[in-house]
């Protein structure tokens, strides 16, 4: 198991290096000039050139990539110009390893920037995840157990409706009606536990998490129902039933355990994806998480932030994959990693 995890981690690091290289290449293949963005209005070419130099974009891109890689390992000091750092030490801001660069758009080092956003996206993902897993698996199991009944049809039908509704529609609906028009809840605004306590944190997450949960839950209802029904038709369950095992025990210990394996895979990857930011939901609710940052950084041609996000998201997915593989072995003893 240990060797397996080490091997997977090593592969993951190689993937991250390649991804960072490709992102750099794509950025510099674009015709957009980052110096022009930062320079402001009415900038003559000489000033744009100077801005490019100040941002470090005047160097060949492989050199910039190398500087970035060194920064990840050793950390970096900004501004990059040694003469400027020497003459005006008050300007220096240190970016500790792993330094993912410095955003000239947001004027902050990317590592700090991501650290600020991760709690927001992680909170949203976590609450939404708990809601959809609890709702999706239990409703899916109920639908399977009541197959063909009104309950089954009702659950499946309603879940289909929520699945069909795009998250931006659901988000806008929840913010426009329950929050603004009906005044049932305040317009959500992310509040950390430190600032608002657990209730403040949770109550502000409720609507955006519900937006995500309703969408994901619908899929999980259908998947859980299908897997539970499939498990229920297995011979070993018929045997268990014939041997007089209590129905509850059959469901929890045998049926759900078998059905859970593929659901865990899916849930792991969905959760990892959401950790990287729920782009639409964060936009609708103005939650300044990783998703909103991703949109902003792409639109403002902010390479360091974009690169940091790509690497972070990739790392989430790689780690989630490893965890899912390990969980497989825990849930299903027949599976052995290594």
């Amino acid at each position, binding site marked *: 198991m240990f060797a397996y995890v080490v091997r997977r981690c090593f592969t993951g690091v190689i993937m991250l290096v390649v991804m960072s290289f490709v992102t750099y290449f794509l950025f510099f293949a674009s*015709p*957009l*000039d980052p110096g*022009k*963005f*930062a*320079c*402001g*209005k*009415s*900038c*003559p*070419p*000489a*000033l744009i*050139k*100077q*801005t490019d*130099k*100040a941002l470090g974009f005047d160097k060949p891109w492989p050199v910039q990539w190398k500087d970035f890689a060194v920064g990840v390992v050793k950390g970096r000091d*900004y*501004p990059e*110009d040694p*003469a*400027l750092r020497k*003459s*005006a030490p*008050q*300007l220096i*801001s240190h970016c500790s390893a792993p330094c993912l660069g410095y955003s*000239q*758009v*947001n*004027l902050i080092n990317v590592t700090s920037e991501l650290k600020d956003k991760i709690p927001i996206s992680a909170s949203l993902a976590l609450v939404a995840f708990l809601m959809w897993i609890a709702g999706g698996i239990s409703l899916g199991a109920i639908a399977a157990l009541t197959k063909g009944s009104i309950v089954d049809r009702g659950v499946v039908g309603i879940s289909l409706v929520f699945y069909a509704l795009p998250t931006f529609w659901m988000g806008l609906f929840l*913010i*426009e009606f329950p929050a*603004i*028009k009906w*005044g049932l809840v305040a*317009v959500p*605004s992310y509040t950390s536990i430190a600032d608002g306590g657990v209730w403040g944190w949770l109550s502000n997450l409720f609507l955006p998490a519900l937006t995500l949960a309703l969408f994901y839950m619908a899929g999980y209802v259908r998947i859980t129902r299908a897997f539970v029904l499939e498990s229920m038709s297995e011979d070993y369950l018929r045997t268990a039933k014939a041997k007089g095992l209590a129905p509850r025990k059959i469901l929890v210990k045998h049926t759900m355990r078998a059905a859970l394996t593929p659901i865990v895979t899916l849930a792991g990857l969905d959760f990892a994806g959401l950790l990287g930011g729920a782009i639409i939901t964060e*936009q*609708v609710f*103005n939650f*300044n998480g990783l998703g*909103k940052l991703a*949109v*902003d950084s792409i*639109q*403002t*041609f*902010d390479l360091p932030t974009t690169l940091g996000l790509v690497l972070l998201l990739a790392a989430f997915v790689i780690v989630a994959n490893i965890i899912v593989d390990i969980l497989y072995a825990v849930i299903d003893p027949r599976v052995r990693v290594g």
Partner: protein
Amino acid sequence: MASYRTKALAVATAAALAATLAACGGGSSNANSNTKGGGTLTYYVRSAYEHTDPQRSYLGVEMTNFSRTVYRGLVAFPISSDPTVATTPVPDLATTTGTSTNNAKTWSYTIKNGVKWQDGKAITCEDFKYGASRVFATDVITGGPNYILTYLDIPTDAKTGLPAYDGPYKKDGQALFDKAITCSGNTITYHFKKPWPDFPEAIAALHMMDPYRADKDQGDKSNYQIFSDGPYELQGGTWSKETGGTFVRNPNYSASTDSPNVRKALPNEIIFKVGQTSEQITDQLVADAGPNKGAVTQQSIPSSKFSQVLGPVASRTVSVTSPYVDYLVLNFNRLKNLKVRQAIAMSTDDTAWVAAGGGPKAYKPATDIVSPLVKGYQANLFPGGSGNPAQAKTLLQSAGVKMPYPLTYTYPSTPTADAQARVLQSAWQAAGFKVTLQGVANSDVYYTNIQQPNQAADLIWAGWGADWPSAITVTAPLFDSRPNLTSKSNGQDYGAYKSDPFNALVDKAQNSSSLTDQTTFLQQADQLLAKDVAYIPLDIPIFYMIHGSEVLNYTNNAASNGYPDLGPIDVASSVK
């Protein structure tokens, strides 16, 4: 410029930002001369501010809000619904609006006694000098207005093409700067290499010459730190790009050093809330509940919400002419035949364009690229109206070109812009053109595309707002080929217009020591642009704004760039 439309297209953009000066009529409601002050005003802002550093701010709305709250300059624009008064500077931290000598190449100001920073220290001449010096640090202080680089009497480095002084951090060429801006006691004197007759207007509109405390300067790290010399100070000292900040009373501000014509500073607290969409902001202000009764916004009501603005809600709205002008640029690399350009102008249906854009609540027709009441505006430079496709067709036929004449029109694509493009297409096609529409969804990509020297579009949409109320900040930066056209980029001269007579008139305007002469030359230059059909004015966007029912003395005016003016605004007792 990346205009208001750029901001509308992008959630956030770091593209070139337009500082604009309102050339507009004012709007006001809930006038109440018996206001006593106090309470909390909420100010909704949709898009994040890129900078709050005075030398880096370049958006009209940011500069306006901060002028009335935390940043004072030598002069300021007063609160007035009369656009002419509102764009005529009055003294702020200086005792007068300045004394000019040497054909407007030298300007002197004396700083008032008793003016202080938020920590109680006196504002000195050196603080003003330091503030101006920061603009020269083009490797650190990026994004702000840079006019001073070409005006201040400092030689240019032949190698870089930039001034030989590189700012207060590296200090190369410091002696040159010390000679160009001098302090004598409380009197500061600026020495320019060319006349700057509208220097007071420029520094009233822009914060580039505002004072800055050297001991507070940490370059980039200071970008969101606000150190006030105005009636308010920022709680915590650091602005949050994503959520805004709360301004509370500055205990070291003395109203006796200020004028109620510039700042009344009535609310005790102003909360800036950044980040909600225009629709969400409008919904909350329409609902008018709780603290939103005392709320204003810089966002126009989106057309999708027009239907909600009825009855009593409508009484809380104000329509103001924005400081922007939208226009079409004709690509001179492709449209070389004057008759073809004239036929395009003649067949442009401006009336249908405005209607497709949402009608009079959203736009009004423009007849000049210079906004009304900016010095140099000419009301009848272009005919506007519905155009005359039949006459245009005759003109096109006489041009000796193959018909239908192919045209490509490029614009930043939105549903509204698409609809507007289609009505233009229809009118042009009736005049014998075959029009291809090329909408570009990403506004940043759009502005990069239209600056390409070899671009394939014949007609290009653009928008612009003056930096201060003079045409010198409109036609010169947009059509003077010399600072714009290079082998790599057309700069802001998107249509690659190149005219020696035009450039000569710009030179004359830039070397005029009087505003009257300057304006005359700029009007002649604009007439030349119209004769050459270098552009076709389309519209002036309307700011259609709503505020809470308990907001008093609400006004949008020319001094505030058409946005809510925080100078006089108060909130009623129920939200105090």
